[in-house]
C-alpha cells in the first residue's frame, strides 16, 4: 500500500510537466526505432556488395542514402530524449525540493529538536538526487531498453526464427547470471555503504576532538579501532568490487556466445540457402544490441528500488503533522505588553512531566528574571513564550489575547529574542543585522549596531558592513557574533524582550556597554531575562526561582533573601 502511494505521489509530480514527459516518450520511441532499423538497412546494402565486379552501386548508394537519413534522425531523437529527460527530472525535483522545504518550514520545533539535521539535509539532497537519477533517468533507460529488446526480437524473428530462439535461450541464461551477481554484489555494496558511514562517524568524532584524544594519549588505541573498521571495509569493499566487476566480462562472454552461435547457425543456414550474408551481418549486430539493454535493466531495477526508497523517505516528511495552520487567525495586537501564564502544564516527553500548573503575571514594562540551576526549565519558558512549543494545558496571554489564537508570525514579531546560541547566516554583516527588520535603511542598521556596541568592530572588519560572514559566523569571534545578534534584536524594536544569558561570551568591558544598552532597551518593555548575573537579577522587578520545572519561589531580591530559602542558597554559592 505504501509503495503504491509513493509511486502515485511521484507520478503527480511528473504529471505537472506532461509536455516534457510526452516528448521524452516520443523521442525515446523514435530514437530506438531508428537505431533498430539501421543494422537491417546496412545489411541490405552489404548484400549488394557480393564480390569482384559484382557490386550493385545504384542499390548500395540508395541504401546508404536511407542509412544516412536514419542515422541523422536517430542522433536527433537521442539528443532530444536526453535533453527532455534532463529537463523533466530537474524540474520535477526542483518542485519536490521546494515542496519539501515548504513543508519543513511548517513543522513544529519539536521536529527539529528530535531529528538529526544531517538526516534531513540528506533527504533533501542525496535522496532527491537518487530519485532524479534512478527514477527518471532509469525509466527512460528502461523504456528505450524495452523498445530495443522487443524491436530487435521482432526483427530477428522476421529474419530467422530458429536462430532467434537460440539467441533468446542464451539471453535468458545471461539474465540469470547477471541477476545472481547483482544480488550478491548488492548485499556487499550495502554492507560497504554502512561501513563507510561507520568509518566517517569515527573519523569525525576523533579528528573533531583530537585535543582530547592527544591529551589522554589515546592515539594508538583509536588507530586500532580505526584499523579494525578499515579492515572490515576492505573485506566488504573488495568483495563488492570483485563481484560487481564480474558482470562485464560475464555478459561479454555470453554476448560472444550469442555472436558465435549466430555466425555458425547463420552460416549453416546460408549454406542451405535460407539466409543471405547481409542478413547474417544484421543478425550479428542485433544479437549484440539485444543483450546489452537486458544487462542494463538488471542494474536499472536495483536503481529503481533505491530511488523508490529515497522517494518514500522524502514523502515521509510530508506525513509529519505540521504546526496547526494560523492563516485565518487575527494578528496579535500589543499595546502595553502584559504577559500572563495561566495554569500552564507542559512536557517534552509525555512520560516525564516538566512544567506543572505554572502561573506568572508580568505587568507591562516589568523586568522578570528567571533563575535556577541547570536543567530547571528556564529555556522551556522561552520555548513556550515564543510558541515554539504549544502548552499541554492552560494558556499564555499577551495583553489579554491567547497566543494560541493569533498568528505565530505576529506573536514573534513583537518578541525580541537574544539567545545563547548566536546564529548568523552566510551573508554580509549588514544583511544579518537587517534580519531584524525587513526593509531597514542603512542608517537604522548602523544605529542598531552602535546601540549594541558593535559599530566599532564592524568598521574594523575588512569590508565593514559589507564583510561576508561565512557559515555560522566562522570568521567572527564568539563575542562579535553575540554583538551582532544583539544589534539584530535591537533593530527589530520589539514590545517584549527575551534574553537568554545573552552576554556570556563577551568580555567584561564590552559587556558593561551592552548591559547599559540593554537597560535602555528594556525601558518601557516587558522583559524576560534568563539571568546569571547578580546585577540583572537584583535589578529585576520580579525574580522567578525555578527548580525541576516549577517555580518554587517568586518575588523581589529583598523579599526572596528574607525568605532564606532556595534563592538564598543559590545566591550565596
Amino acid at each position, binding site marked *: 500500500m505504501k509503495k503504491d502511494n509513493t509511486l502515485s505521489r511521484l507520478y503527480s509530480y511528473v504529471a505537472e510537466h506532461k509536455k516534457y514527459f510526452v516528448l521524452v516518450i516520443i523521442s525515446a520511441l523514435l530514437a530506438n526505432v531508428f537505431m533498430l532499423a539501421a543494422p537491417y538497412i546496412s545489411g541490405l546494402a552489404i548484400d549488394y556488395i557480393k564480390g569482384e565486379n559484382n557490386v550493385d552501386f545504384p542499390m548500395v548508394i540508395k541504401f546508404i542514402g536511407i542509412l544516412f537519413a536514419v*542515422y541523422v534522425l536517430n542522433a536527433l531523437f537521442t539528443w532530444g530524449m536526453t535533453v527532455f529527460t534532463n529537463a523533466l527530472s530537474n524540474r520535477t525535483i526542483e518542485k519536490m525540493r521546494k515542496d519539501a522545504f515548504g513543508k519543513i518550514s511548517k513543522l513544529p520545533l519539536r521536529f527539529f529538536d528530535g531529528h538529526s539535521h544531517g538526516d534531513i539535509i540528506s533527504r533533501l539532497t542525496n535522496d532527491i538526487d537518487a530519485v532524479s537519477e534512478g527514477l527518471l533517468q532509469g525509466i527512460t533507460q528502461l523504456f528505450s531498453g524495452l523498445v530495443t529488446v522487443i524491436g530487435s526480437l521482432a526483427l530477428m524473428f522476421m529474419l530467422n526464427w530458429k536462430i532467434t530462439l537460440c539467441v533468446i535461450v542464451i539471453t535468458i541464461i545471461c539474465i540469470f547470471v547477471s541477476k545472481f551477481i547483482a544480488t550478491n554484489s548488492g548485499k556487499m555494496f550495502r554492507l560497504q555503504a554502512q561501513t563507510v558511514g561507520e568509518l566517517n562517524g569515527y573519523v569525525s568524532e576523533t579528528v573533531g576532538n583530537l585535543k582530547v584524544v592527544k591529551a589522554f594519549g589515546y592515539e594508538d588505541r583509536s588507530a586500532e579501532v580505526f584499523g579494525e573498521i578499515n579492515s572490515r571495509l576492505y573485506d566488504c569493499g573488495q568483495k563488492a568490487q570483485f563481484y560487481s566487476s564480474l558482470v562485464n566480462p560475464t555478459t561479454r562472454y555470453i554476448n560472444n556466445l550469442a555472436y558465435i552461435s549466430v555466425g555458425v547457425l547463420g552460416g549453416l543456414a546460408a549454406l542451405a540457402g535460407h539466409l543471405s550474408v547481409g542478413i547474417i551481418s544484421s543478425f550479428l549486430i542485433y544479437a549484440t544490441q539485444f543483450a546489452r539493454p537486458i544487462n542494463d535493466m538488471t542494474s536499472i531495477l536495483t536503481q529503481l528500488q533505491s530511488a523508490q526508497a529515497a522517494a518514500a523517505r522524502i514523502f515521509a516528511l510530508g506525513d509529519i503533522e505540521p504546526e496547526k495552520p494560523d492563516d485565518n487567525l487575527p494578528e496579535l495586537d500589543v499595546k502595553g505588553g502584559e504577559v500572563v501564564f495561566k495554569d500552564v502544564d507542559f512536557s517534552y516527553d509525555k512520560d516525564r512531566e516538566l512544567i506543572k500548573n505554572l502561573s506568572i503575571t508580568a505587568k507591562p514594562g516589568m523586568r522578570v528574571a528567571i533563575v535556577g540551576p541547570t536543567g530547571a526549565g528556564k529555556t522551556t519558558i522561552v520555548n513556550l513564550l515564543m510558541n515554539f512549543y504549544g502548552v499541554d494545558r492552560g494558556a499564555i496571554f499577551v495583553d489579554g489575547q491567547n497566543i494560541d489564537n493569533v498568528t505565530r508570525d505576529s506573536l514573534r514579531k513583537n518578541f525580541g529574542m537574544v539567545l545563547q546560541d548566536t546564529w548568523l547566516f552566510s551573508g554580509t554583516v549588514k544583511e544579518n543585522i537587517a534580519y531584524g527588520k525587513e526593509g531597514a535603511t542603512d542608517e537604522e542598521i548602523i544605529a542598531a549596531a552602535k546601540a549594541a556596541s558593535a559599530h566599532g568592530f564592524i568598521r574594523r572588519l575588512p569590508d565593514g558592513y559589507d564583510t561576508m560572514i561565512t557559515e555560522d559566523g566562522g570568521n567572527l569571534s564568539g563575542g562579535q557574533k553575540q554583538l551582532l545578534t544583539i544589534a539584530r534584536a535591537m533593530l527589530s524594536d520589539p514590545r517584549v524582550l527575551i534574553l537568554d544569558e545573552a552576554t556570556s561570551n563577551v568580555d567584561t568591558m564590552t559587556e558593561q556597554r551592552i548591559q547599559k544598552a540593554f537597560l535602555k532597551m528594556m525601558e518601557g518593555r516587558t522583559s524576560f531575562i534568563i539571568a546569571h548575573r547578580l546585577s540583572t537579577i537584583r535589578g529585576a522587578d520580579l525574580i522567578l526561582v525555578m527548580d525541576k520545572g516549577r517555580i518554587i519561589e517568586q518575588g523581589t531580591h529583598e523579599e526572596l533573601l528574607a525568605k532564606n530559602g532556595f534563592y538564598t542558597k543559590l545566591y550565596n554559592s
Partner: protein
Amino acid sequence: MKRLFPFLKPYRLQLTIGPFFKLSEAVLELLIPTLMALLIDNGVNAGNKDYIIKMGIVMLVIATFGVMFAYICQYSASIASQGFGTDVRNAMFKKIETLSFTQLDKFGTPSLINRITGDVNQLQSAVAMLIRLVIRAPFLCVGGLIMAMMIDLKLSIIFMIVIPLFILVLFLVMFKAVPLYKSVQKKLDSLTLVLRENLSGVRVIRAFAGGHREKERFNDKNKDYADTAIRVGKIAALTNPLTSIIMNLAAIAVIYFGGIRVNTGNLSQGEVIAFINYITQILNAMIIVANLVILYTKAYASALRVSEVLAAEPAIKYGTTAAADKSDNAVEFKNVSLTYGTSKIPAVDDINLTVKKGETLGIIGGTGSGKTTLISLIPRFYDATRGEVLINGVSIADYSEEALRSLVAVVQQRAALFSGTIADNMRMAKADATIEEMREAASVAQATEFIDRLEDGFETYVSQGGNNLSGGQKQRLTIARALVKKSPILILDDSASALDYATDAALRRAIKESTDNQTVIIVSQRVNSVKNADRIAVMDDGEIVGVGTHKELVKNCEIYREICSSQEQLEEGDENEEG
C-alpha cells in the same frame, strides 16, 4: 604524488598480473571479428560446412579463455585497489593523529574527513581502472586500427579522418561541460548551505518571522541549481548523438568505399563486415579513453589532497625525559610568546609566570585576552614561538610524549565526549580504571548524582558528541574523566561555564579537598570561580597585567577591578565567601 607510490608496492604482483591478463583478453577479443570474417568468406561463401563448425569451436575456445583471463584481472584489480585504499586510509589516520593543532586548523576537520574517505575512494577506483582499462582501452584502439589496416590499408584512410574528428568532438564537449559541472556542484553546495542554516537557525528564523524570506531564498537557489543543471544537460546531451553519428558515418563510408574495393577485387564481403566491427570497437574504446581522462584528472586532484596530508611533517618533536623533579615550580613560563599562523600580533606576549607545586592558580580575563592560548602551551597543543615553558624545572620540549601526557590533564571549554558508555569515556584517561576510581572522580566532579539517576549508571551509552546529555552534565563528565587520570597538574579551561553557581562552587570545593598535592590551574571569565585560588593571574590583550590574591588584585590591579565591578564582586565579594 611520490608519497603514494610506495603504497602500491605490496601489490606489485596484482599490478603485473592484472594488466597482463586483461591484455591477453583484449587480444583474444580482437581476434573474434577476424575469425568471423574468415568464417563468412571461407565457410559460407565457399560452401564449406566443416570450416564453419571448426571456426565456431575455435571462437568458442577463444571466448572462454578470454572470460577466464578477465576474471583473473578483475580479481587482481579488486585486491590491489581496495588493499591500496585501506593502507592509505590507515596511514592517513595515523598521520592525522600526529599533526599539530596549527596544522589541523589549517586543514580543517571536514576537509580531513573528506580526504580520508572521498578522496581515497577516488584513488581506489583510479587504481582499479589502471589495472582494468588503462592498458586495455588504448590497446583495443591501436590493435583494432592495426587489424583494420591489415585487412585493407587504403580503406583504413577513413580512420585517419574519423579519429581526429572524434577526438575533437569529445574534447569540445568536455571543455564546455566540465567547468559547468563545477558550477552545478557549487550551486548545490550553496543550496545545501541554505538548508543547513535553516535547520540550525530555526529558532532565530521563526523568532524574526523570517520563514517566507527563507523560503524565497531557498527557492531562488533551488531554481538556479535546476536551471544550471538543465543547461549543462543540454551540452552533455550532445556527446552521445555526435559521437555515434561520426561512428555511423564512418560505417557508411566503409560500406560505400568498401563496395568499390570489393568491386575491384581488393576486398571480400566478409572483410567489409569485419571492418565495420573494428570501427565500432575502436570508437567505443576511444569513448572509454575520454572518460578515463576525466577520471584521472579528478583522481589527480584527489592524489594531491591525500599526499598533502601524508606529507605533513609532525611539527612537534618530543624529547626523551621520562620524569623530573628539579624545581619547586610545577609550571614555569619564561618570556613566552606565541603568534598564530600568519598573524602579526602575538596571541600571548612575553609571559613570565610560575605556578608552585600544589598551588591553585586562577587565570581571568576577557574573551580574546589569551587565557586559553596560554594554557594550551603547557600540554604542547601549540609550541611557543619564543621563550620556554618548564614543568618541574625541565623544558617541556625535553619530555617524552607519554611523560608529558601523564603530567598534565586538561579539561577543555567545549566538553568533548565520545560515543560509548560513560565508563568507556572515563577509561580513556586510564585504561584500567576501576569502578571505585571512576566513582571517586565522578563524586569530585559533582557527577555522581546525575549518573546514579541514569538507568544504566556508568554503563549508560553516550551518543556521538554526547548529544543525549545536557551541557552541564557533559562538562561534569569531562572533568571527572580528567580527574581519573590523577595527573600532577590539572588544568580547567573555563570548563564549568554551563554549571550553575551552586554546582560550580561545590565542584571547586571538592577539587580543593581531594587534591592536596595536585597543582590546579583554573581559567575562567567569572570572578567567583577564581576568587578562592591561591593566586590569580589577570590577562588582558595577550599579556599578564597582574598576579596576586583576590584582595591584592582588588587593591592593585585596575583591570581586575573593572572585571569585578562588571560582575558586582567588588564590595560584597568577600561577604559571600562563607556560603
